[in-house]
């Protein structure tokens, strides 16, 4: 009955990667029956801290105790055995195996030395139900599931391991609003069952709703611990970035006159059963947002413009002239000048093992070369410009881009396309999983590009971003534009109401009248 001994404790944990200090004498105390939020910018050491806890990396120094006894984990399996289970930000599901296979993967039920498929199915169904995801079929292959469902499987998988400490690293970043509220219910129930939960998120409102205790990390150290709710958002953000924090969002200019000719226009765009009669315009200098619940056709719409989808019907016009864009290569041609910042930077945006330099110049190679030979000097000039413009933090241009932090990787993706000076920029949820500081830089950059004359179409799952960045927002529901919000009409309430397609009820009329 020694309540003074915390469930788990880390003392003086340090870890270096080459010359970079990821963790420096970090401390953490985890108690049962509570939800502990870990905050910090990307690169603050949160990920390393978790990896140490979960047995993925070994610390250079420091000690960890579980129930007061010193422990070391040589592998993720060892940490699991001790009851520490982590849901990683980078999904740890095996794509070619079924949902049930994945859920029991660390310790499948066995009969006569072979995997007992019936028992496995039962365990999987139970775990899915506990995670509030009973709609997922246990025999479905993981690779056939959309990202948000995979994340639910990941959570079910963690629960099936009967953890004592459950770590969620950005576990809600790809979830739909409905799933997030389900998961919150699940997490609160687990807390009442006596589990210790570590919750890492960049979403302050989630933390406010969920956490009991918060610890802020900066530059590899824990800089502050406080009871949840005892600090304002602004104070928390200041702790995280360690500097005065005023305006996340840059000021919006006066609205672009509706009479200006549209740069990008869609007329009755339809595709398969995902897009229905979408018509929209984006003018030069405008930031137009795409809102709505996740998975209502926003991604498909961007891919449609970018020439990835086949069998589109309807028309796409650039500068008033109809065009047929047959591939991403065609989309970036001079007459069109389109760029797409993809959602999944690791697969669609970057070649991780290749260098920062190579990644940066890929999209612009044709402009930088004469007769098939790359003009090194011109390449270097342009790269220097971009690294400066975006303040990309990298130890050099010739290191693999995979070695950069998430935020800096995303900057490389954006810089790569800016090297072509695109006239139309499509952004697909570009700030997912990146830190506040980088987000702020991206918002400013977006506005700067618009002011310089680019037409920007910006999909985000974060309502604050849409409110803070966009001149207009189109809310999609089931593949169709349900509502267009202009200027002051863009409020959280209006966004949510139209995202849920509940018109009239919460009086968007009133909002319209005030505009």
């Amino acid at each position, binding site marked *: 009955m020694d309540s003074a001994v915390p469930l788990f404790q880390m003392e003086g944990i340090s870890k270096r990667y080459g010359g970079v200090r990821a963790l420096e004498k970090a401390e953490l105390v985890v108690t049962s029956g509570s939800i502990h939020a870990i905050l910090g910018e990307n690169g603050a050491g949160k990920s390393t801290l978790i990896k140490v806890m979960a047995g993925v990396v070994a610390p250079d120094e420091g000690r960890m105790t579980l129930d007061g006894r010193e422990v070391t984990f040589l592998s*993720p399996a060892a940490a699991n055995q001790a009851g520490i289970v982590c849901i990683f930000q980078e999904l740890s599901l095996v794509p*070619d195996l079924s949902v049930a296979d994945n859920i029991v*993967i660390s310790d499948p039920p066995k009969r006569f030395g*072979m995997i007992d498929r019936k028992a496995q199915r039962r365990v999987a169904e139970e775990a899915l139900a506990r995670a509030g995801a009973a709609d997922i*079929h246990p025999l479905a292959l993981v690779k056939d599931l959309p990202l948000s469902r995979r994340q639910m499987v990941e959570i079910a998988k963690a629960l099936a391991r009967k953890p004592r400490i459950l770590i969620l690293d950005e576990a809600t970043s790809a979830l739909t609003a409905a799933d997030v509220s389900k998961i919150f219910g699940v997490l609160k129930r687990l807390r009442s069952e006596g589990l210790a939960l570590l919750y890492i998120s960049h979403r302050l409102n989630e933390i406010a709703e969920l956490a009991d205790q918060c610890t802020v990390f900066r530059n590899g150290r824990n800089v502050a611990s406080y009871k949840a709710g005892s600090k304002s958002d602004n104070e928390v953000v200041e702790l995280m970035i360690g500097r005065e924090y005023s305006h996340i969002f840059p000021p919006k200019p006066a609205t672009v006159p509706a009479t200006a000719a549209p740069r990008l226009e869609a007329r009755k765009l339809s595709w398969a059963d995902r897009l229905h009669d979408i018509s929209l315009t984006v003018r030069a200098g405008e930031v137009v947002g795409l809102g709505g619940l996740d998975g209502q056709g926003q991604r498909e719409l961007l891919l449609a413009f970018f020439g990835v989808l086949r069998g589109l019907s309807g028309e796409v016009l650039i500068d008033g002239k109809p065009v047929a864009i047959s591939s991403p290569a065609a989309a970036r041609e001079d007459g069109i000048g389109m760029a797409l910042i993809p959602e999944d930077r690791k697969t669609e945006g970057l070649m991780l093992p290749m260098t920062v330099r190579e990644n940066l110049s890929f999209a612009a190679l044709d402009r930088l070369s004469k007769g098939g030979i790359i003009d090194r000097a011109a390449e270097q000039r342009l790269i220097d410009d971009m690294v400066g413009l975006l303040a990309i933090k990298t130890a050099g241009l010739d290191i693999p881009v995979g070695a950069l932090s998430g935020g800096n990787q995303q900057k490389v993706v954006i810089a790569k396309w800016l090297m072509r000076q695109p006239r139309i920029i499509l952004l697909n949820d570009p700030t997912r999983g990146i830190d506040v500081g980088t987000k702020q830089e991206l918002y400013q950059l977006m506005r700067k590009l618009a002011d310089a004359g680019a037409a920007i179409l910006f999909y985000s799952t974060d309502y604050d971003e849409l409110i803070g960045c966009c001149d207009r927002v189109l809310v999609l529901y089931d593949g169709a534009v349900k509502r267009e919000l202009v200027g002051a009409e863009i409020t959280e309430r209006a966004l949510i109401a139209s995202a849920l397609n509940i018109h009239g009820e919460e009086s968007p009329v009133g909002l319209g009248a005030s505009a």
Partner: protein
Amino acid sequence: MKDWRYWLAEQRGMLLALGIFIVMFIIYTSNHPAGFTANVVQTAANKGVLLAFVAMAQTLVVITAGIDLSVGMIFLLTNCLASWLVVGTPMQTTLGVIAVLAVGLLCGAINGAIVIYGRLQPIVATIATGAVFYGIGLLLRPFPGGSVNEDLADAMTGRVFDVVPASLVVLFAIVLLIWVPFSRSVLGRAAYAAGSSETAAYMSGVPIRRGKFAAYTLAGLLAAIGGLFLTFFTYTGDAAYASGNAYTLFSIAAVVLGGVSLFGGKGSAIGAIFGALAFRTIGDLLFVFDFDPLWQPLFQGVILLIAVSLGAFALFRVRNRLEWFL
């Protein structure tokens, strides 16, 4: 979706290979001068199982997202070895068979150790070990020769109850004894998981190394079973370089025909067996049509291309081009 639909989706590659095999075999037997008789089936089975065993071996490694370019050479080496050891009294013969299989296991284990613990690329590692295995085979049998216990050989290549080819029965037994337990064991699942996404598997605490090691080792064993059967059919040992290489390459063709993904994580040895049988039948088709045998490689290649393209047809229906690369 109903359960059986998931099952169907999983077995698509295998069923396609089965379909191709059945069609080819019907064409073959209906044009064969002797028709569909036990004799014709027995001959076809005996030729088919050789490639089937080697293709099963290849499957195990391909599932881990590796490739084994030494299977054909293990097949030859064990053939040469069997032509020395699988002789004499029943006792001596039994010991000989065990020794041959043990050597196959050892070859596979060496491949596995080099790839997993030495962290060499599977292609390079198995080209090298394949050359070594072939070299040993050549030293054992510089010239074709040797012998085998003919009673055992005849039993293995004959017919059970005068109808069913014994080689098919053995193939079936090997599937039950090796493939089924492997694919349903934790190690088998680890092999699949490692082939599909090694990082995800590692993060989930899956015994990746043991799974891959088991796959390579069992691959050696299966190739050795193939080598034994080669000896039963030919009564001799022969370190024929071209034949070893052909078996290696054909095993890859059979695996692909059987719906096993070269990217790893997907497919089954049963699919590969039908792939192997189909591939063999394709090769034999020309004989029943009385073509010049010179045409065989060309014809076999064309049919293989067509068959593999069948699996790629789904790509034409893809409406989101990003799915091409998944």
